[in-house]
């Protein structure tokens, strides 16, 4: 079967992705894959539901009426409000991220210091929201492994997730650190989680 690719298809989409009468190539898409890697690049996408084309669900608290802030500032403020609200009200429309490092016996403090000195600033500089770092058990062990957990939050998986990952994953220092730490630790892992109620929002696609 021959696939004819000489004639560009003329398509129209609701929402202005391709203007009527224009081919796909002539219209500049308002949403591109690159927009997922630049937080706030796709102005006007205010909810996970809108981006995903579904009818409900939002990852953000509504902006106060009369707020005339720039949409990207609104997104940043909502992310801050979300995390502050999490502490104050127990609301949990965020994705939790836990980096779990299991140190070799007696090397917990060194691994903890390595992360806090080298990786935490890199990730925060890339826009990650640090919550806390904990050590289990709460005593440095000479003869057994310490488990270090570093907690972060992420406001959504529509834009923030891809912005967070692109800002780190394409940094050679980030990749090098995580590649090398595997030789220094018993194990490393990153776990993403969310409340069951937020799952309803995340999965409403």
């Amino acid at each position, binding site marked *: 079967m021959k696939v004819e*690719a000489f004639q560009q298809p003329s398509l129209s*989409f609701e929402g202005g992705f391709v203007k009527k009468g224009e081919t*796909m190539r002539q219209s500049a898409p308002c949403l591109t*894959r690159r927009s997922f890697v630049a937080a706030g690049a796709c102005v006007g996408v205010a909810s996970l539901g809108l981006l*995903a084309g579904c009818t409900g669900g939002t990852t953000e608290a509504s902006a106060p009426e009369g707020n005339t802030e720039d949409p990207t500032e609104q997104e940043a403020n909502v992310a801050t409000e979300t995390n502050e609200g999490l502490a104050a009200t127990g609301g949990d429309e965020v994705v939790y991220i836990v980096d779990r490092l299991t140190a070799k016996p007696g090397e917990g403090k060194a691994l903890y210091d390595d992360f806090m000195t080298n990786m935490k600033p890199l990730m925060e500089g890339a826009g990650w929201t640090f919550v806390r770092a904990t050590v289990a058990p709460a005593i440095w062990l000479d003869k057994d492994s310490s488990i270090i957990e570093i907690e972060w939050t992420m406001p959504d998986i529509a834009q923030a997730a891809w912005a967070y990952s692109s800002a780190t994953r394409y940094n050679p220092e980030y990749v090098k650190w*995580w590649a090398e730490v595997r030789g220094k630790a018993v194990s490393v892992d990153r776990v993403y989680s969310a409340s069951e109620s937020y799952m309803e929002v995340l999965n409403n696609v």
Partner: protein
Amino acid sequence: MFSGVFAVTFAEGMDDAAKDQFVADARTAAAAVSDVFLADKVLEPPMPGGDFVCEVGFADQAAYDAAKGGAAWGDLKALMTDPSKVANCEFLAYGEGDLLLQEKENSTCHRILFFSIREGADPAMIEKMEAHMNDMADHVPGLRNCKFARVVESEGTDEWAYAYECDFDEPMSFLGKYMTTPFHFLYVDKFFEPACAEWVANVNLCTPYMAQEKPFLANFA
């Protein structure tokens, strides 16, 4: 189906007219190799993997091997690697793999993800990735066909190991639901994230996507 894919980055100084001519020449050259091909500029340059993709389809690897020995293939490859027009060309050839075929008529977006495997990757995690990549279609209704295959020939800047090829009903299914389903970032992407225990893929993955009129993966079906 067996595919040979050229992912090209245009040389500096190639203006729009020169790029359009390159596309026309590529289509002529590809048509001389096989009736089944796609050749076009990608929809979102510059992307890792370049500005232009030419994919040529064959019934099987034997047909590909036979074509490789011919003058037409030589002409196509010469165009894809012409330094006056091309700054870089990644090439990969791959076969059947795991194919999910749901749509034979309607598709306007074709995408090829290809990547290499990092040194020291856990074989168990590689196996897990192989088992679950095509599960993306369970969570993205617009992902109509997909094929996950091991690369058997690779040329370019890396030793490409896998190709994940997709036919979407429309580009917005790729840019929207494919990117926002939790199954993608919270599960499949862990194979691509250095901090995760599942990490197996190098970060220099390429993911060009392009327009099409019919689902490419339905060829020879």
